[in-house]
């Protein structure tokens, strides 16, 4: 499709200027009158009974306004399975468990008071390995579930599996098979802006909370539940979202620190702010889950995939967040990346006394794609088929219905594979490895591209309020985290409504003013917002043109009268405005309303602001506000059977790597990356590139350097000194972007979601290139020099790896 006025054109994002000049306001920058600062007392044990908490010295510290524990506040249950308490009572189950909190005049006093709180513990045996946690006799992390029923094991009760066809028969039938075990580590999301909130009550006990969240409306629901638990049933939480400083999944749950700020604010009778320091963020904010994956895949003599058999074990940590539902997204690549007729998937999630985990970009997808795509290269080698050719033979195609029941509408995977192959000079470079220690490899992905129904509603609402000045004030519940949502939304509205981008003003996301939206996750932000925008714009245009039918003839008559005052000799072209002024004959473009068949005369055009004022300032006048609510055509899957068309469309992509491996140091040097992504349609090239480059950089960190290290449940590297996310130097290799446009039928202007795909296939693409270079298969992320050397030595013996 072509002919767009704004869509697809490189356009600076609306918030760029404020951010580049330091004028964007993050939670760190916000203050409220009378605001106090909160600090939390965290557990000093991984697993222990709380015997006694002595807060007396903290209470006496000058400047302290409130000291709370689980024993002097109402019990507030939190978490996806309500298995967590805002402040712990019976025992602690991880090092970061919240035991007490202080509100004080400044953060230093609050911290000093926290340090004065003394807790007496009775240490309990702990378990830190998910397999050990599921063994007989393992210490129980939870003795009871949220409803008080006794629990018999550390198995998290969230079954997720899938069975299609007969995998056992396919295993017998397969000519070639490959199997392996793969693992991925804990990853810190590393938002540059750390987590925080401000909680404030009015005299009616209604709460306003400025929260660093990606789910303002689900958060409202959670907070309202907490208010009820506090004896404030029926009171409301208004959630306001400041500039976010990055999200990456950290905002998909509500967090204990938020409930603690609420409890402190209510106790102190003053607003309370809690903001994590970087060290607190590393140690006390939930990271991406670690996962262990066992995989088997097999094919026939022609390389056609016959089966895929995947078992995943996730270390959940001590409490269940939304992040424990990663397997619901793992289902996508396991069942639907390439065409596989027989699929078996079982995910097991274990409670341990490690830090509990939450969502991160990709949401389970990178964890299993790491295993699937690494193992697929092994299978191709086993079958003696080129790895790219193998993927092309099994490529997904439009019209396909996958084992999970995903309805493949548009699918650019074949083109992504071909373009990646071309970008890597696959034919010349693949298999030339060992001599030069250079190699090429690739891997692909599928992800939700048209919303992701993991909740009963996957909808998104929008309100457009037009004012006397022709401004379009937008109220939308999605969250601009940095990804460029407001950029896409501005262009979508300008395009579909017919106003200039500078007239579009997107209001702060606020549950008090914006219509409901399930949250900014599953790469759904731009897809949903732009769809809601198109619906709202259609309504607004219908209303504008109806008003124009009524008011336009008078307004242009005035225009003409004015013109004739200036130019008495002006001869108007013959055109019967009154007769032509029918709603369906109007057009609105760049803020001007005109009749499509009218001569191109300035007086025959009416500014949108002029029309709104004419409608407003008259007897029984009216203003123009429209709303839309878009709920995509997708299904809430049955996760116990792993079937359901979770998204209205799917994003595909392939990334390729060319690497050089130093066999003396084990260092992997990336020479080039190719990233080919089916994005449906480009909305704004520069924000799209930001998402893809940024995702790829996170993929590089995941592949090579990042790992949150723990020992007996304690985080060992809580800072950027020892947790290595990529700097500009690690990203100095060339990246060839190949944008594939498939013009999706459901997508806004043809676009698909692109938020998460960028990091999904990066690690296996690199691992496959490493194998091509030096012939070793790496199974455990990150692929550090130590692991590469160990693999080389295992292959070649302890002698020089030649």
């Amino acid at each position, binding site marked *: 499709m072509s002919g767009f006025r704004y869509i697809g054109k490189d356009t600076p994002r609306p918030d*760029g*200027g404020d951010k580049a000049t330091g004028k964007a306001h993050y939670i760190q920058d916000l203050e409220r009158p009378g605001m106090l600062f909160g600090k939390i007392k965290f557990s000093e044990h991984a697993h222990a009974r709380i015997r006694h908490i002595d807060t007396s010295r903290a209470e006496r510290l000058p400047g302290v306004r409130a000291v709370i524990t689980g024993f002097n506040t109402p019990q507030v249950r939190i978490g996806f399975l309500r298995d967590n308490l805002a402040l712990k009572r019976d025992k602690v189950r991880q090092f970061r468990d919240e035991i007490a909190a202080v509100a004080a005049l400044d953060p230093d006093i609050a911290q000093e008071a926290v340090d004065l709180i003394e807790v007496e513990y009775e240490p309990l045996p702990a378990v830190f390995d998910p397999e050990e946690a599921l063994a007989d006799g393992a210490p129980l992390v939870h003795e009871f579930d949220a409803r008080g029923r006794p629990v018999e094991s550390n198995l998290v009760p969230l079954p997720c599996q899938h069975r299609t066809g007969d995998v056992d028969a396919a295993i017998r039938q397969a000519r070639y098979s490959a199997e392996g075990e793969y693992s991925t580590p804990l990853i810190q999301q590393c938002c540059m802006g750390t987590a925080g909130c401000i909680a404030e009550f009015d005299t009616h006990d209604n709460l306003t909370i400025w929260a660093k969240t990606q789910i303002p409306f689900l958060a409202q629901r959670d907070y309202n539940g907490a208010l009820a638990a506090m004896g404030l049933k029926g009171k409301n939480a208004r959630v306001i979202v400041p500039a976010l400083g990055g999200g990456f999944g950290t905002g998909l749950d509500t967090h204990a620190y938020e409930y603690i700020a609420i409890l402190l604010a209510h106790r102190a009778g003053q607003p309370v702010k809690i903001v994590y320091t970087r060290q607190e963020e590393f140690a006390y904010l939930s990271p991406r889950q670690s996962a262990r994956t066992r995989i088997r895949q097999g094919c026939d003599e022609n390389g056609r995939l016959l089966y895929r058999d995947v078992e995943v074990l996730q270390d959940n940590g001590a409490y269940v967040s939304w992040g424990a539902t990663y397997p619901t997204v793992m289902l996508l690549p396991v069942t639907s990346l390439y065409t596989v007729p027989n699929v078996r998937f079982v995910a097991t999630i274990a409670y341990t006394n490690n830090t509990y985990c939450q969502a991160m970009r990709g949401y389970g997808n990178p964890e299993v794609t790491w295993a699937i795509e690494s193992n697929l290269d092994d299978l191709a080698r086993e079958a003696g088929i080129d790895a790219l050719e193998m993927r092309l033979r099994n490529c997904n195609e439009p019209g396909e219905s996958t084992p999970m029941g995903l309805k493949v509408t548009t699918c650019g995977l074949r083109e992504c594979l071909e373009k990646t192959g071309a970008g890597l000079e696959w034919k010349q470079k693949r298999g030339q490895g060992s001599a030069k220690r250079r190699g090429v490899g690739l891997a692909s992905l599928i992800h939700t591209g048209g919303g992701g129904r993991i909740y009963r509603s996957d909808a998104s609402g929008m309100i457009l309020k037009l004012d006397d000045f022709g401004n379009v004030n937008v109220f939308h519940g999605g969250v601009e985290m940095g990804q460029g949502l407001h950029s896409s939304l501005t262009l979508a509205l300008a395009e579909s409504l017919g106003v200039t981008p500078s007239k579009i003003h997107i209001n702060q996301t606020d549950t008090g003013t914006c219509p409901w939206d399930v949250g900014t996750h599953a790469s759904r932000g731009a897809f949903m917002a732009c769809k809601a925008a198109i619906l709202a714009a259609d309504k607004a245009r219908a209303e504008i043109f109806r008003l124009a039918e009524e008011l336009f003839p008078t307004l242009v008559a005035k225009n003409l009268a004015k013109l004739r005052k200036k130019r008495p000799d002006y001869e108007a072209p013959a055109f019967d405005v009154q007769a032509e002024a029918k709603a369906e004959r109007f057009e609105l473009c760049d803020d001007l309303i005109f009749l499509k068949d009218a001569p191109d005369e300035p007086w025959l055009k009416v500014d949108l602001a002029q029309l709104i004022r004419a409608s407003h300032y008259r007897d029984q006048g009216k203003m123009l506000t429209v709303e839309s609510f878009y709920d995509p055509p997708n299904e809430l899957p049955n996760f116990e059977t792993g079937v359901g068309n979770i998204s209205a469309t799917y994003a595909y992509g392939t990334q390729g790597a060319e690497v050089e491996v130093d066999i003396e140091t084990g260092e992997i040097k990336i020479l080039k990356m190719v990233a080919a992504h089916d994005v449906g349609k480009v909305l704004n090239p520069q924000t799209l590139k930001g998402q893809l480059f*940024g995702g790829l950089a996170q993929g590089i960190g995941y592949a090579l350097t990042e790992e949150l290290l723990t020992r007996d449940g304690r985080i060992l590297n809580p800072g950027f000194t020892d947790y290595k996310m990529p700097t500009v130097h690690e990203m100095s290799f060339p990246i060839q972007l190949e944008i594939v446009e498939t013009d999706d039928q459901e997508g806004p202007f043809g676009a698909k979601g692109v938020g998460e795909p960028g990091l999904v296939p990066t690690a296996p693409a690199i691992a496959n290139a490493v194998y091509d270079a030096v012939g070793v298969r790496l199974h455990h992320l990150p692929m550090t020099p130590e692991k590469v050397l160990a693999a080389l030595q295992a292959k070649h013996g302890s002698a020089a790896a030649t």
Partner: protein
Amino acid sequence: MSEEISFELNGRPVRVAVDPGQRLLDVLRGPLRLTGTKDGCSEGECGACTVTVDGRPINSCLFPAPEADGTRITTIEGFLDEDNRPSAVQRAFAETAGVQCGYCSPGMVLSAAALLEANRDPSDEEIRDALVGNLCRCTGYVQIVDSVRAAAAALRGEA
């Protein structure tokens, strides 16, 4: 305990009471009301708190406030054109997608500006060297480097 120090902040004189152990970052964001400078890690690793002291970019989270006495300090708020409009470097970041969540942007802009003050035609490697102390989680740095290149061209009068 506290002492009074004076320095030039964004072209204007200021006098402020500081404690011996206080960080310049907290003085800027607190009593001096300049919140454009961000606290990203408090250990000098991420560069979000970058300001320039006598033209040199430093991490204000590691810089003792008393040492600011007698210096000339520029924060992101002071890094504007004469008419208080975004400077060429800021415009380049805003227009070339060097900005995403924006939390690292003030520090990135100041590190880039310090480079371009000394070198109007930096190579990509020189740009990367200048930005290696500034972490960004959103962009993958590609369009940040593009922004600095665009800013350099603008400053050379080529844009």
